[in-house]
């Protein structure tokens, strides 16, 4: 149990740092949703399934959709790094 929780916390920390370091904006959005997904698993482990579902739906789903929409608004939605105009 404690090892799984430490692994989850490690994944959350690693993807939160990856949000800062990734050069691709879309990949950074995906990494920020991975943080919420690991947090949702952590909530489910702590016997809070309602909070876990809310975190998975809003944190991993809706907020990354909003960030992706902002990327399209700013013209940063591209899949390759070398596609810079």
């Amino acid at each position, binding site marked *: 149990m404690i090892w799984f929780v430490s692994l989850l916390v490690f994944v959350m920390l690693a993807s939160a740092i990856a949000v800062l370091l990734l050069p691709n904006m879309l990949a950074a959005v995906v990494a920020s949703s991975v943080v919420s997904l690991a947090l949702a698993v952590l909530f489910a482990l702590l016997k809070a399934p309602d909070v876990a*579902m809310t975190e998975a739906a809003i944190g991993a789903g809706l907020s990354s959709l909003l960030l992706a929409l902002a990327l399209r608004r700013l013209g940063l939605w591209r899949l390759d790094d070398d596609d810079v105009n």
Partner: protein
Amino acid sequence: MRNVSGLLFSGGLAFLLLVIATHLPFGQPLMLVGSDIIQASPHEVGSANVVAAILLAYRGIDTLGELSILFTAAAGVGLILGHRASQNVPPTQVKNNSGFISQKGIELMIPLLLVVGFYIIFYGHLTPGGGFQGGVILAIAFFLPVLVQSDARLDHNIISIIEGLAGAVFILIGLWAMFYERPFLQPFFNGLFAKGTLGELWSAGTLPLLYLALGLKVGAELAGLLATIADFSITETQGSLSEDDTQ
């Protein structure tokens, strides 16, 4: 020097938090008020999910307040951003660069998301989940094509009709309880909406109907809000593009 002091500060803060955390019993409830509600709610409300019983039965007016907060947020976004979408700019100018794989993948995802969303709403009084979570998943299902295909639009008229009907149903159920000389939004059991057996789908009186209204309202509200922002971004980008062309 500032870096060193910041490091010292965060290190000291982490040490203090660790010291506090080692003294807390992990996983044992400090708050014991909820045990009474956990004991009483299956008999009083008939809902197997205690969270649903609290959200819709004991604190129904709070949920109505949350709905009105969401409505105010959506109305504010529509008021600030909505007027540009009414100028009817042809939506074909934006280059669609989201790719073949993501378009086809989303076509496969939408039925799955709809089924999961409605399952979470309909079983909200039995299993964890409910109107808010299922509504968010429905909103994502309706919004994904708008995100990927930049020429797809959501029909705002249908969305506002669904939203208004769902909100009206929520309030009408509350008023229906007053018809039986009970307080507003208190759950009641008669006729079609019987209390039923604990744990069956058709149980807990009006709670499933309230959760369905809540989920549809949240889903329509959030989908409309996101679509308003997306329309704004499309028209705004086209405006700047056409300005560039004229220069």
